[in-house]
């Protein structure tokens, strides 16, 4: 969260005065706020007595659109179907909320909605960005509540539907319950068996001893069969596939310790190991949960982005506009897409021209100008003006879902490292069973009474508790340390692959550069002041969403009237009786000059602006540190050669490939891989998505497109590259720790098995050694979470 928050803060436009609500630059001198929307939101927050939000938050709020949007359609039954469930006291819906930035946002939404009459329950999860809202439909309409949410700057989306959300929650709750039961009952089991351990001389009356054994059995049973269910189910699955792995090993040890203890209890044998079984479940479960939650935390946000869908479309029928749920659209329908909303389906444009933001699809946040008859893709956003479309593709036929499938397929083809680990574990299981059997066979003719105890001691000593903890404990500690630096690891074995990388292939735009055009040079003509010219440009571009307009963003101090946007050309407006134009040279002052923007007053040129996309400030030191880690660096960019060459020269990168299509980039990766290199690909756009999936490890920039993020193994949040060398150093360190852990666990197991097989050790002591070995592995792994970058 902190990394996210810091990233958001760094984005705030540098200005001496910023909006009290959203932190954007303030336009007029009279106000504390950048716009009326923010002012209204802040006023409401103050009147509601929730002013503490400003004190408690760790990131600025969202800019609030003045027209909060019309949510009346959300009240319709056909929209709510599949998303709203009936509860004992009203209705309930799970929404994906855009704009949740820190814990204070969750708090604000919670308080703000609970204050509305008719709301029965509010629960916001800032990590997963989900809002669960319960309300009484007869007292308040859903649209009113969504209006309130939207007026605070949080935009609601439909989440995955009732069934999916319920399944997600049920799974999470069940894991929590399993862990809770395991923790509570294991403590009791250890308490009862402690009494048995203390009786080292066998002075306890047999009746008391058996009482304690049965009690331990009692509290142990739910741990093994309820909490341990994931392992038992895993074993069943692995055995069905005839591929015994870690789960088989773990579950076998648990079940053997449990049932052997039960038999010993029944026949009054000298020892029981119920506590070992319970502790085993508890340790394994906590390691597994830690690892799982770390992954969940990392992927929830991306998941949300990809699932967020517009709830409704505006269908035009017989010159009437009606709002329909998106799944009622059919091919051939005519729809209207209001400004600033998502396009619901693929279609052809019916208007003369319109512009769309296709950044979700293309990763390039450049406004796309479309003309009549052009194809518009689902998932793009209509900019500035509404557009009319005739639908050509819906649901799974849309380009968006095709790309998603492509990415998923590319991901599925990756050779999984996990399979190797499973094979090793499978061999290990067989070897251990054979060992236990041969120990039994060896002892049977010598001392048939001791044979079973020895065989059991071998199995308990061989119990790969430490072995199965070695990887997850190290990984969760490393993931945690990385998450605190703004690096999210999404792929299960991405860290292991990151550690063995020897070549880094970098994208240029948006990765090495900021991806935002910046004003590099301005030439002023006609004796104008630079400040005046820049102020004019800023005022002209104020409401323009074209990315080039960002280059001029600064506090607006001039009033411009009659502003008009000429798509593909520039903007025009009036100030103090003069007509100003800012845009292409032929548009602004009727002359030819490609590659620069011109500002004209009544057709006379007064300034020429040169825009460029500068390198990130931390790009050069990051490249130096990557080289120091022994990595070879290469750049593959879609840009023209001169731009790539100059950027690479500045960074000291000698190998680069310019004018690369996604296919070219993929081919570059394949060539490198064919030469035995292990390639890390770092990129930001959807153009890169198949490329990212093809690399050995892939990393995406956090501000890149959501789709690229979904196909990446690792996500760099925050606003820079500096975490990259740290991540690689930590990955290598993690690999070292995992090897140490494996080495330690195997050594322990071999020695302990040897001692156990020779009949020297009691199964009870073997169990104790096993717990100690696990502890050592965990402590070793935890060193990773205190990782200092200087020690890299």
């Amino acid at each position, binding site marked *: 969260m902190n990394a996210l928050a810091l990233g958001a803060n760094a984005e705030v436009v540098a200005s001496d005065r910023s909006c009290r609500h959203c932190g954007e630059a303030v336009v007029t001198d009279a106000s504390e706020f950048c716009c009326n929307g923010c002012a209204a939101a802040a006023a409401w927050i103050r009147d509601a007595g929730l002013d503490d939000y400003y004190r408690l938050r760790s990131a600025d709020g969202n800019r609030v659109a003045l027209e909060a949007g019309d949510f009346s359609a959300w009240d319709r039954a056909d929209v709510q179907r599949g998303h709203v469930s009936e509860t004992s006291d009203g209705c309930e819906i799970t929404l994906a909320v855009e704009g949740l930035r820190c814990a204070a946002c*969750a*708090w604000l939404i919670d308080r703000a909605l609970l204050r509305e009459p008719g709301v029965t329950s509010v629960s*916001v999860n800032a990590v997963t960005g989900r809002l669960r809202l319960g309300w009484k439909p007869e007292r308040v309409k859903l649209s009113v509540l969504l209006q309130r949410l939207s007026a605070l700057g949080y935009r609601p989306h439909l989440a995955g539907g009732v069934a999916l959300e319920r399944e997600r*929650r049920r799974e999470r709750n069940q894991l929590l*319950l399993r862990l*809770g039961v395991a923790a509570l009952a294991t403590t009791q089991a250890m308490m009862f068996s402690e009494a048995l351990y203390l009786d080292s001389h066998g002075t306890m009356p047999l009746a008391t001893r058996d009482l304690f054994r049965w009690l331990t059995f009692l509290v142990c049973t739910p741990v093994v069969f309820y909490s341990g269910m994931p392992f038992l189910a895993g074993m069943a699955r692995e055995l069905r596939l005839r591929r015994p792995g870690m789960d088989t090993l773990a579950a076998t040890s648990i079940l053997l310790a449990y049932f052997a203890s039960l038999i010993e209890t029944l026949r009054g044998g000298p020892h029981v190991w119920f506590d070992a079984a319970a502790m085993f479940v508890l340790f394994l479960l906590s390691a597994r949960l830690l690892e799982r939650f770390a992954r969940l935390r990392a992927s929830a946000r991306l998941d949300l982005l990809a699932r967020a869908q517009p709830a409704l479309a505006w269908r035009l029928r017989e010159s009437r506009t009606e709002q329909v749920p998106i799944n009622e659209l059919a091919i051939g329908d005519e729809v209207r897409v209001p400004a600033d909303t998502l396009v619901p389906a693929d279609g052809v444009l019916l208007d003369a021209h319109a512009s769309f933001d296709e950044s979700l699809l293309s990763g390039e946040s450049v406004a796309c100008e479309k003309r009549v008859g052009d194809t518009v893709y689902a998932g793009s956003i209509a900019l500035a003006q509404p557009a009319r479309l005739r639908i050509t593709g819906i649901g799974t036929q849309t380009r968006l879902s095709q790309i998603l499938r492509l990415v998923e397929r590319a991901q599925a083809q990756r050779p999984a490292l996990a399979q190797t680990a499973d094979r090793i574990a499978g061999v290990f299981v067989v070897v251990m069973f054979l060992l236990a059997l041969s120990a039994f066979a060896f002892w049977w003719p010598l001392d048939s009474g001791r044979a079973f105890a020895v065989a059991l001691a071998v199995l308990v000593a061989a119990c790969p508790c430490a072995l199965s903890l070695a990887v997850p404990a190290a990984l969760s500690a490393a993931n945690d340390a990385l998450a605190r630096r703004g690096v999210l690891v999404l792929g299960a074995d991405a860290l292991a692959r990151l550690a063995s990388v020897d070549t880094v292939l970098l994208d240029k735009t948006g990765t090495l550069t900021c991806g935002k055009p910046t004003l590099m040079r301005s030439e002023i003509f006609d004796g104008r002041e630079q400040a005046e010219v820049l102020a004019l440009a800023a005022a002209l571009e104020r409401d323009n969403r074209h990315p080039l307009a960002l280059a001029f963003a600064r506090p607006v101090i001039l009033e411009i009237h009659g502003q008009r946007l000429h798509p593909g050309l520039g903007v025009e407006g009036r100030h103090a009786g003069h007509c100003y134009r800012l845009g292409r040279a032929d548009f602004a002052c009727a002359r030819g000059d490609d590659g620069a923007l011109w500002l004209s007053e009544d057709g006379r040129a007064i300034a020429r602006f040169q825009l460029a996309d500068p390198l990130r400030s931390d790009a050069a030191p990051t490249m130096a540190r990557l080289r120091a880690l022994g990595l070879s660096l290469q750049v593959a960019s879609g840009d023209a050669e001169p731009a790539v060459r100059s950027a690479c020269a500045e960074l000291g990168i000698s190998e680069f490939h310019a004018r690369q299509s996604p296919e070219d980039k993929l081919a570059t990766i394949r060539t490198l891989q064919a030469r035995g290199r292990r390639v890390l690909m770092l990129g930001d756009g959807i153009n890169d998505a198949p490329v990212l999936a093809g690399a050995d490890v892939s990393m995406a920039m956090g501000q890149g497109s959501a789709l690229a993020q979904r196909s990446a193994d690792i996500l760099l949040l925050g606003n820079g590259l500096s975490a990259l060398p740290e991540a690689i150093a930590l990955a290598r360190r993690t690999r070292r720790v995992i090897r140490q852990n494996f080495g330690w666990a195997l050594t322990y197991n071999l020695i302990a098995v040897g001692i156990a097989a020779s009949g020297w050790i009691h199964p009870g002591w073997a169990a104790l050694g096993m717990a100690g070995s696990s502890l050592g592995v965990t402590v070793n792994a935890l060193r990773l979470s205190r990782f200092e970058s200087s020690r890299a």
Partner: protein
Amino acid sequence: MRILLVLIPISLVLLGIAIAAFFWAVRRGQFEDLDSAAIDILRDDETDAPPRVEDAD
């Protein structure tokens, strides 16, 4: 040692209560929104908030 016959049932009953309470809490969604409550406690009750020194964090 007859005290065991009292203490052991008590410990089992306590265990049962603890597990039941945990189930209740999870089912009621007590673990779903872990952020609002953490913030809530930092908030002053109804009285005017004292001027707070901005600390760098």
